[in-house]
């Protein structure tokens, strides 16, 4: 073995011991029902349960809808910051960076004051529905789309826009024909990252305290900690990991294509 490979060994060994080995144990435990032995029983049990199918469906549609919302909103806001700049646009861009360093559950905490039972807008049960989670996820994850978009916009050659404008193209046409094609790679990269993060989001859902909204990470938590059903929790975990890791793989391929 060459010396360079030897140098790479210690960090890889640490990762294997503290991340890959535990993950392998989760997969192993998902095949070991409480009664002992090795079988597909835990999978059959979990797949048959109504709660799991509901959680899977809720997770997927919430993630897709949040990603769509973040993409539309992020694109519009970034357009204004980059191409219709106003005094303070720089400060807004910096605010977005700061926003990314706060934990996600702060958004739900704030929404509890606005829409909660004793809240500002009143006591209609908005937060305990998936729509409350959707609003919180769109709010929290939109900056994750805006950051790559703003970076892409700053590299766009403004001469193209001015040429198009002087030839009589109006703003919607310039956006559709020049800006949108140029920003597709950034949109794809940001969008798939947000999709993965939404599939894995836990804090937002936990803080709504809604019994009606259960996503896969929430199900892992409640099965493991509240019900002590470890094989079941491991099955849900395996499903969740498979979905997120395959999507994240796709994200890496897309963003590498885009040259990011």
């Amino acid at each position: 073995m060459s010396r360079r490979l030897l140098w790479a060994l210690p960090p890889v060994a640490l990762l294997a011991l503290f991340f890959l080995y535990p993950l392998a144990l989760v997969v192993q435990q998902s095949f070991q029902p409480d009664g002992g032995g090795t079988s597909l029983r835990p999978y059959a049990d979990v797949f048959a349960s109504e709660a799991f199918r509901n959680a899977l469906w809720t997770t997927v549609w919430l993630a897709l809808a949040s990603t769509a919302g973040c993409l539309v909103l992020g694109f519009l806001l970034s357009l204004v910051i980059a191409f219709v700049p106003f005094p303070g646009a720089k400060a807004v861009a910096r605010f977005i960076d700061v926003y990314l360093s706060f934990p996600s559950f702060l958004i739900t905490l704030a929404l509890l004051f606005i829409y909660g039972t004793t809240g500002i807008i009143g006591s209609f049960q908005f937060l305990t529905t998936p729509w409350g989670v959707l609003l919180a996820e769109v709010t929290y994850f939109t900056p994750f789309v805006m950051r790559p978009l703003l970076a892409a916009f700053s590299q766009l050659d403004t001469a193209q826009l001015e040429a198009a404008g002087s030839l009589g193209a109006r703003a919607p046409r310039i956006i559709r024909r020049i800006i949108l094609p140029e920003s597709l790679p950034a949109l794809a990269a940001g969008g798939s990252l947000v999709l993965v993060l939404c599939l894995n989001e836990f804090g937002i859902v936990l803080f709504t305290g809604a019994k009606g909204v259960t996503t896969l990470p929430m199900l892992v938590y409640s099965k493991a900690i509240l019900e002590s059903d470890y094989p079941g929790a491991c099955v849900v975990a395996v499903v969740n990991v498979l979905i997120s890791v395959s999507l994240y793989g796709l994200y890496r391929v897309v963003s590498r294509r885009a040259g990011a």
Partner: protein
Amino acid sequence: MLVHSRGARWAVWAVFLVLFVPLFALPLLVVLGASFATHWSGVLPSGPNTANYRAATRGEALQALTTSLLTATTASLLALTVGTWAALAGAALKKRYRRLMDALFVLPVAVPSVVVGLSVLVAFSKPPMLLNGTRWIVILAHTVLVTAFAHQSVSAAITRLDPAYEQAAASLGARPARVLLRVRLPLLLPSLTAAAGLCFALSMGELSATMMLYPPDWTPLPVLIYAATDRGALFTGSAVAVVLMAATLLVLFAVSRVRTRASYR
């Protein structure tokens, strides 16, 4: 400039404000406002006082703050060491191995943090590595989660590094260890501090894996905020949340001061 007419420009800005303020500024303002209040059922919070902060800076909450700071500092330093080592070692490898190593080290980003928590719980609850019930299991999980981010940002910085400096140093007879310590690491210092800030912020706000793992005597701030809101103490909870945000921002600010100094060198 995309919109030329003055009226249209104002209209665009109005739409921007209508979207931006309620969605992004309002949540933070609401948490800040609530942290000084005891009631909030009208438009503005009522019952202004600082009792929430007195509760949020002593006893249980103060201990949670120290817990969070210690956890985040330890986890970021460990993650920075392992991540930088992996990035430096990976950059020296052939393309095939480098890709493999990159893929391995970003995996924790894609795996849900709850599952990272579960896997650590499953693996370290039995001998020979019995960590469950100690603070180390929380620190370990945080380290695993943030190492991926440290590795990503440091390896991105390494690919941007100009090889001319290290080649010059090596051609003047510096040994690899000296090149690493005197040339490459100083050049990487700005990205290292940026990565440290990112890791620290992520670890301060980490809730998902922590909820699976925390022992009773090691409750970080996010867990305390959840416990407060869960039993209905929303106003105390938001004061603790403001403390969390302020602590994170202070450390990030300090780190960015180090960074500006490093990049002027």
